[in-house]
């Protein structure tokens, strides 16, 4: 592949490079000004929008890192995201395993039923969902969010796992069955270790979805101490109004972990998106 593309004379024309650079500027500028804005004084923002700040005093960053809100809201988000990923991976892979490898009456029906979730976005039923969670005593708890997010993620995760399991060599499962190995042990000792790439894809995908989610925590959580970071940052912005340097510092600190994570895991994010999109 690399050799083939080297032979081509110029894969990207000058006109294309020019537009790419313009688009790149358009993408970068908001990030750039946000990152520098945390160091600037408020008056500086207006007179010196693109230049480097007059001083690199990190006072706002230090204050935020030392404050109560930053680490607790990030910690809450991390806890919810990890809980969602672990549970969703486990539950969806078990279901997909049963649907892909065990023959039983009604399995196409169950697959079709679970795929109904791909027809409409989870926000659609959010109001009755709130009532249901209230009646079950799941409001204002991290567990409530985790469980509901797992439910939301089931359709897509089962689809990805199911597609992957069907590709596994059938002989492997049959051989294990001949050796009197039960399905539960086949799932745990044979299938799961073979499907690490798809676990990574589903896991990263659900992690990002949970980390960024806003509507569900907004509706479920009441206590500030339980807020996830998107709620925390909205509240911070509400509290400091237009003290933009402070808000930009908070924003910078909040999105940095996500950007670092994305740069490390982008391969899995992209394969989840395109794999699911193309096969779904």
């Amino acid at each position, binding site marked *: 592949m690399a050799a*083939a593309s080297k032979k081509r004379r110029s894969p990207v024309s000058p006109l294309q490079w020019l537009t*790419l650079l313009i688009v*790149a500027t358009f993408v970068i500028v908001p990030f750039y000004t946000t990152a520098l804005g945390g160091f600037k004084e408020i008056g500086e923002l207006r007179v010196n*929008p693109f230049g480097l700040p007059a001083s690199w005093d990190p006072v706002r960053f230090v204050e935020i890192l030392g404050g109560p809100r930053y680490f607790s809201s990030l910690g809450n988000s991390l806890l919810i995201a990890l809980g969602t990923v672990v549970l969703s991976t486990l539950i969806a892979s078990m279901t997909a395993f049963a649907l892909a490898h065990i023959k039983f009456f009604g399995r196409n029906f169950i697959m079709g039923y679970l795929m109904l979730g791909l027809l409409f976005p989870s926000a659609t039923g959010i109001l009755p969902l709130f009532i249901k969670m209230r009646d079950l005593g799941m409001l204002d708890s991290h567990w409530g969010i985790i469980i509901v997010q797992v439910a939301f993620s*089931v359709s897509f995760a089962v689809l990805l796992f199911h597609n992957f399991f069907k590709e596994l060599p059938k002989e492997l499962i049959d051989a294990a069955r001949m050796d009197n190995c039960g399905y539960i042990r086949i799932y745990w000792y044979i299938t799961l270790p073979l499907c690490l790439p798809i676990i990574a894809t589903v896991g990263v995908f659900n992690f990002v979805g949970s980390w960024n989610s*806003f509507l569900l925590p907004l509706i479920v959580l009441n206590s500030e101490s339980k807020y996830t970071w998107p709620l925390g940052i909205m509240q911070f912005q509400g509290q400091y109004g237009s003290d933009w340097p402070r808000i930009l510092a908070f924003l910078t600190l909040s999105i940095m972990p996500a950007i670092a994570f994305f740069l490390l895991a982008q391969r899995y994010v992209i394969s989840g998106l395109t794999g699911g999109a193309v096969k779904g």
Partner: protein
Amino acid sequence: MTTLSNTANAGASVAPRRWRYVERKSLLPLLLFLPPALILFSLFVVLPMVDAATFSFFNWNGYGPITDFVGLENYADVLTHRNFGTAVRNSLIVVAVSLLIQLPLAMWCAIALAERSVSINVMRTLFFLPFMLAEVAAGLIWKFVYDGNYGLLPAVGSAIGVDMPFVLGDKFWVIPAIMLVITWKYFGFHMMIFIAGLQSIPNEVIEAARLDGVKRWQIVRHIKIPMIRSAIVISVFFAITGALQLFDLIIPLSNGGPSHSSHTIVTFLYQFGILRMKLGFGGAVSVLLFIACVIVALAYRRILFRVEHN
């Protein structure tokens, strides 16, 4: 082995003697593996939609018994609500902007970035970065960019001697402002789908056309774009469903304002159904949204099927 293949064919051929609905050995794993997903999915995805449909025929504030049956009144209220029309119009504008600006931009970038090299990889990652960012964070970053007093836009305006309006406080400018953010946030996602499609085109096809002296843009126009039709259908589908569920980005940017001019369907649902605990009204909005989503999804499957088998 024989039992496996027997049960596999059982539905089609004459049922063999040993065939049962479930093999005894697979009963326990099934009872262990299936219920968790089925219960969670039924309870928190399917049942809420059924409830929404039920609520939509009643007048209910969320407390006490549901008794006040009002027939189709809630639907009439939703459809005649003056801000519902605005919300639908805004969602349609999002779809139009996605199809006319965002997807062509994504295609342009994808064609340039479908090759493999280091500089290209850096750019691809950069363009995809806004998509990974939480909507709330993206909304707040752009709220700063647009801020009338300290933001980037007025700073640029005063540098070139133009007085910029407070775009997010202006009933007209708020919509183009939001569209720009949507393009910034999502074009990289569509670009990635197109790149995946372009990379699946066999190299020989392109090479053969090139050796025949076909020009670069003719290759794009007559070979590359037709060959990734299904990626384009997928992209259009995501653009439409994304527009139907747009929420997180709007709340920090404009919160549906000024004077409810920038609502989308879900922010409308949030503002007038959830915050006011009007279950019936909200249920009616949910049902209408659900119907729209199902129509889009079914149309998508049909069109994708036709494109792939053509």
